[in-house]
């Protein structure tokens, strides 16, 4: 009965969403306050119904209700409770419900936090969000409801969650990733509202920025977690494969980063208005594209849910309406959005424009690469593959170019900067960076490579530029701490985000260049040496887990002559699905990961063992974490606080007149 309740709540949610999509929008276009005021209550009740629906599905999993087909396909009574709960989003239907639920969370947040907005804007924004909700809720209900029952031949036991997903990664990665994907719908809704109302002013940018920055933060951590999860879960030490589904998350991130920067310019200088609107629409469109690519079967991917061209068609129609409609609206209405101010060639605006250009080009490159096989096939010209060698070959130079301009951009002023002052400031720091970078690269490993060295040089240069900028802000005050406090939170979040980029860059450059791997046959007592570490194989034992049996190996690692770590890689067999999983053991360090995995047993009691040496790999995710904190932090900037306080302080002045 609970499942039916969940289905019914979803239907009611769809009804609320339909009203939300129509009524406040109608009110805004006719200036009718009564109809517009329905937006917030409708938004809140939409959230409530989806919450009930989600809770019903969670309940079905928690109580092992295998009469619900989705539960039977993704759970098992022997599954630990925390995996039962996260199995809710382990398959296509449940993850869609999660998507819709998270959308309603954002809608609720916008409804609650929009008291400072004019009524017509908040009405329009919530209506647009309601339209998106109608699309996805109807898609879920009609094609992919997680509440379908198996009343004939109800299974006694579930098919178990895919062992690959039985991991903490499943608990956190999809919800955070979806928070990011879906969060960009808010920026999208604000853009549509601006196009419909014909108004785009400083206030609009001020409202849109925190929503965009926070969604960006979530998407950043979602992608970071995905990479981290793949690294330790899949057992072969890779952390990014340029798989279509991974690209589908990276593209909105790139466009979203461009949007974050473009919004900064629009808020501070009233510039790039139509470009910002286009980016906001484009970013969310890429999120939707991701949904399409993952679930339609149009591209092959290890990540994709069961491919279904019928569902794919439905999503495509949704895309056509949402993206096509908004792009058409943009083409018609954006003409009237003209920017007022000016700027010189040597200014922060120019560098941010270049930033946008490079980011959008990288995004376009990934889109081309991901869709190229499909294009060639559709043209009837055969089957080709585009994979990591292509993406890495192009991504590296583009991202180095981006970092080059980042070092310059953080040092420039708005509107106009003197070229000579810039050169005077940056040229010495560039020279120092080259020296530092080359020395650091050489000291780290005598076999230097050009790419890694350039990456290090640029990292130092950005670091010095960031440092110089902070110094210039505090040098004039006698009490430095006060100067630091005086800087707005948004300034520090900007520095933190850029610092995060540098940290990730260093991690990527070093691990891609200097990682080592050996696959060897080891017998008890054998030892092997790699990069100054010695690995001794001590044997394998059998062990029993909650829903698996395991072969657990023991390796003792020595650094030089000193004991370094004892490692236990496992091979687990899950009887419910009959699958075998490698659980690698990783000795994680701030500067180095040592990675050990167990392969197949060989003749004479020997085992195949994989050893990996991964320097600085944690820096990649540390950078992502820093970027996430920066994005979240920026929402706390003073200027987003409620204006009631200002009103109460301004009345005394008025009374003087």
């Amino acid at each position, binding site marked *: 009965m609970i499942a039916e309740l969940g289905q019914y709540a979803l239907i009611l949610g769809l009804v609320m969403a339909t009203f939300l999509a129509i009524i406040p929008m109608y009110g805004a276009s006719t200036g009718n306050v009564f109809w517009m005021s329905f937006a917030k209550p409708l938004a809140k009740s939409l959230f409530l119904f989806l919450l009930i629906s989600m809770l019903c599905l969670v309940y079905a999993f928690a109580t092992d209700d295998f009469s619900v087909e989705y539960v039977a396909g993704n759970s098992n009574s022997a599954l630990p409770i925390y995996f039962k709960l996260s199995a809710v989003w382990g398959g296509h239907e449940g993850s869609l419900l999660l998507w819709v639920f998270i959308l309603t969370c954002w809608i609720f947040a916008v409804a609650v936090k929009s008291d400072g907005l004019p009524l017509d804007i908040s009405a329009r924004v919530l209506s647009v969000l309601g339209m998106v909700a109608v699309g996805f809720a109807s898609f879920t209900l009609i094609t992919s409801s997680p509440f379908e029952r198996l009343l004939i031949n109800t299974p006694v036991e579930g098919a178990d969650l895919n062992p690959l997903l039985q991991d903490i990664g499943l608990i956190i990665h999809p919800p955070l990733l979806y928070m990011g994907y879906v969060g960009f719908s808010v920026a999208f809704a604000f853009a549509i509202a601006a196009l419909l109302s014909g108004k785009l002013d400083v206030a609009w940018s001020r409202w849109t920025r925190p929503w965009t920055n926070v969604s960006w933060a979530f998407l950043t951590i979602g992608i970071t977690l995905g990479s981290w999860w793949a690294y330790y879960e899949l057992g072969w030490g890779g952390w990014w494969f340029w798989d279509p589904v991974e690209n589908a998350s990276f593209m909105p991130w790139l466009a979203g980063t461009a949007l974050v920067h473009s919004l900064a310019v629009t808020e501070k200088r009233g510039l790039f208005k139509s470009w910002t609107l286009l980016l906001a*629409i484009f970013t969310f469109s890429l999120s939707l594209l991701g949904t399409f690519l993952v679930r*339609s079967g*149009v591209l092959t991917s290890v990540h994709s849910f069961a491919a279904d061209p019928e569902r794919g068609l439905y999503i*495509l129609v949704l895309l056509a309406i949402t993206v096509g409609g908004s*792009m058409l609206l943009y*083409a018609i209405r954006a003409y009237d959005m003209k920017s007022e101010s000016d700027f010189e060639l040597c200014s922060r605006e120019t560098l941010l424009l270049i930033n946008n250009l490079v980011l959008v080009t990288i995004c376009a490159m990934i889109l081309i690469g991901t869709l190229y096989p*499909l294009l060639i*096939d559709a043209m009837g010209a055969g089957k080709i593959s585009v994979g990591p060698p292509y993406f890495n070959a192009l991504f590296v130079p583009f991202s180095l170019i981006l970092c080059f301009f980042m070092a310059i951009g953080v040092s420039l002023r708005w509107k106009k900067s003197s070229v000579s002052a810039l050169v005077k400031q940056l040229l010495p720091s560039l020279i120092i960076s080259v020296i530092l970078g080359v020395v650091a690269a050489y000291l780290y490993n005598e076999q230097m490579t050009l790419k890694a060295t350039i990456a290090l040089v640029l990292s130092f240069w950005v670091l010095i530029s960031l440092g110089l900028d902070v110094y210039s802000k505090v040098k004039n005050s006698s009490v430095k701490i006060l100067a630091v406090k005086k800087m707005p939170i948004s300034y520090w979040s900007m520095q933190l985000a850029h610092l995060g980029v540098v940290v990730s860059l260093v991690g990527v450059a070093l691990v891609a260049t200097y990682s080592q791997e050996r696959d060897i046959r080891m017998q008890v007592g054998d030892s092997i040496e790699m990069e100054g570490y010695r690995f001794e194989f001590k044997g394998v034992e059998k062990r029993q887990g909650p829903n698996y049996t395991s072969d657990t190996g023991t390796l003792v690692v020595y650094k030089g002559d000193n004991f370094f770590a004892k490692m236990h890689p496992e091979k687990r067999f899950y009887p419910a699905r009959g699958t075998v999983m490698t659980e690698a053991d990783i000795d994680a360090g701030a500067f180095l990961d040592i990675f050990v995995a167990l392969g197949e047993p060989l003749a004479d009691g020997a085992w195949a063992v994989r050893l990996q040496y991964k320097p600085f790999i944690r820096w990649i995710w540390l950078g992502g974490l820093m970027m996430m904190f920066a994005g979240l932090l920026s929402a706390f900037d003073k200027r987003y606080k409620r204006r009631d306080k200002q009103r109460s302080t301004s009345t005394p002045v008025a009374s003087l007149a």
Partner: protein
Amino acid sequence: MRRILLFVPFIFCIVLGVLFVKGLSLDPTELPSAKIGKNFPSFELPSVRDADKVYTQTDMQGAVRLVNVWATWCPTCKQEHSYLNKLATTQGVEIIGINYKDDRAKAKQWLKRYHDPYIFNIYDEKGGLGLDLGVYGAPETYIVDKQGVIQYRHVGEVNATVWADLKVKMQALGWSAK
């Protein structure tokens, strides 16, 4: 000018949309053989039935035939086997078998139990011929013409629907049912 530029994103989306509609009708997992239009790869391998008899690529010439890659460890091969029997007996289709990475004794036993539709069976123990053919998973069925040139490959089981398609292709090459 600016007005026209503003329509570029919209046009771009339409183009992508058309691509995706076409894409929905395609199957990205389908991989056509790289050997189509090429001669059957050269090989020298023994027969399954008789270890002393050796076959080469010239034995693949002379008639329009099906070449079926199969193995006893392949469950789908068992599924399609009865249909292959039917084709051989009722339609007079000549089927050459390639026993792929298998065990000869097991293969012989399997054929005795489930009947043998093959005019002859090549024992590709190491899978070298399969590799040269571009086999990536049993069962696979090739159409080979009179000159020994590979004309088509089907991956997966042969059933009534598949046969309808194969029949048309074979007839175009000059084959006729007996």
